[in-house]
């Protein structure tokens, strides 16, 4: 039985189960509880050029079947990551996929260039960030903006490049096509859904940042649809993100067209869920006499 999937020439995952950005920090804490070499890949917290302080507290709130976060992309910055965190991640036998973002095209480019170092297998661009030069509209909202941004980043790095899309767009397909056209090697589909919580006793927003992003099982049906849509229109691999909690979810996302999945919020509640998910996936393959994970990708029977 073969659980490995090839995402790009330089990137073969031993299994399709990755961590997700922002729910795995830089790997250190999780390494205390399981061997990170078991993972298909390690996706790290989103990095910016300079360290970022993030949003005021409260930053997280639980909702029905999920949670809203408004961390505000707090991170140690790309330099500190390369110097302080990357060597640690090098110990494990799992590709390191570094999530990053910027506030303008140039910052994306600079961060990507700075991450073109050994020990990193791929970059994941978070395009759900406001473009400060364009009045704060997210890069991931318009296909032309995205095409231009991804093209610049593509030229700035030799690494395998994932583009992580925003879910809340007019048509995710045109975004995926733009990313592919600009040279992305894979599409991560998708980020959290914009959301909000209000405490009616105080009559105030719950989160320090007022709004945040919804994740967890609540959004799984939405993410599944997005992956299915993207699968209809691109030929590069899709990495699914959104509400993956069990191996059932993994199989469903593979069938919808994903080649791999990222597990985010689920690992906040259950740090060992990765192991259950990987084992469950293997057991499913065995039970259904499927030789290779890749046989399932996009094979939804209509």
């Amino acid at each position: 039985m073969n659980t490995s999937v090839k995402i790009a020439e330089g990137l073969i995952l031993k299994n399709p189960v990755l961590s997700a950005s922002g729910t795995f920090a830089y790997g250190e804490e999780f390494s205390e509880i399981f061997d990170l070499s078991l993972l298909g890949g390690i996706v790290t917290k989103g990095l910016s050029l300079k360290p970022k302080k993030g949003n005021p507290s409260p930053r997280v709130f639980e909702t029905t079947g999920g949670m809203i976060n408004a961390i505000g992309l707090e991170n140690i910055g790309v330099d500190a990551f390369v110097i302080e965190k990357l060597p640690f991640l090098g110990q494990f036998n799992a590709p390191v996929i570094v999530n990053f973002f910027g506030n303008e095209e140039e910052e994306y480019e600079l961060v990507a260039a700075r991450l073109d170092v050994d020990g990193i297998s791929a970059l994941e661009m978070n395009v759900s960030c406001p473009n400060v030069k364009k009045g704060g509209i997210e890069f991931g909202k318009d296909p032309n903006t995205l095409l231009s941004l991804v093209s610049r980043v593509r030229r700035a790095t030799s690494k395998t490049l994932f583009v992580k899309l925003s879910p809340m767009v007019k048509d995710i397909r045109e975004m995926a096509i733009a990313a592919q056209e600009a040279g992305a090697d894979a599409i991560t589909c998708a980020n959290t859904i914009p959301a909000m919580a209000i405490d009616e006793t105080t009559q105030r927003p719950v989160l320090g940042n007022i709004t945040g992003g919804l994740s967890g099982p609540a959004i799984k049906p939405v993410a599944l649809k997005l992956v299915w849509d993207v699968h209809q229109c691109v030929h590069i691999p899709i990495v699914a993100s959104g509400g993956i909690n069990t191996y059932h979810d993994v199989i469903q996302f593979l069938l919808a067209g994903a080649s791999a999945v990222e597990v985010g919020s689920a690992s906040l509640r259950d740090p060992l869920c990765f192991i259950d998910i990987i084992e469950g996936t293997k057991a499913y393959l065995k039970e259904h006499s499927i030789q290779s994970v890749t046989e399932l990708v996009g094979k939804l029977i209509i």
Partner: protein
Amino acid sequence: MKDVRGTVCNNTKVADDTFLLSLDCDLPDSRPGQFVMVKVACGYEPFLRRPFAILSNHKQTLEILYKVKGRGTQLLAEKRPGDILSILGPLGNGFSVPEEKRQVVYVAGGTGLPPVLSLAEDLKQGVLIFGAQSKDQIPLMSRISSLPGVELKVATEDGSYGFMGLATDLLDELTGNARGPVSIYACGPKGMLLATSECARRTGSRCELSLEEFMSCGFGVCSGCVVETIHGNKRVCRDGPVFDAQDILF
């Protein structure tokens, strides 16, 4: 940190809305001030675990003292002996050990009791000031009163037990009269911690506060629980929950 299965041995009401839960579980050794993340339901309702201080953790028995606040703690209160819970811990840093010759004062308000009580049971010295709204809100009275070496002082807001007023009123009195250097260990509502920290500053006492923030992971990966300190943002779950009072930017 380990994710262990705990079997409920006892889950008894010990004050208004307050329960003492004891679990048979193989949690690694812990220090006072550390906590665990408890999965209160198998499904996704609620989705996240809930943080609780470790009241005690000896001989395979873990004790948690908790108050019913919302649906998570409500579900916990419905657990019966034999039920199994998933427990992640021990988490966080815990209190530091006081220097010799220091007078130790513990200040606890409401659900802030467990971490400081845990420390008092460990150190077997000092004065424990407990503040509550009223008599019905005071759990484990006889257990605390019978602690060797520890003196209990209770303040209730409505005067239904002990001193009528705030825990920090008692603290002010105590530190005012103290003859040597004092180490204060506190956990409770924000206002109480602020007043405690003020008092420590005024009297030049050492002071450690155990903070609470809403947590999603509890082990440091999500940055959901940060608090501002003079050293920048710190994660309450990982860099705390115990902080030097001087470091906190209230």
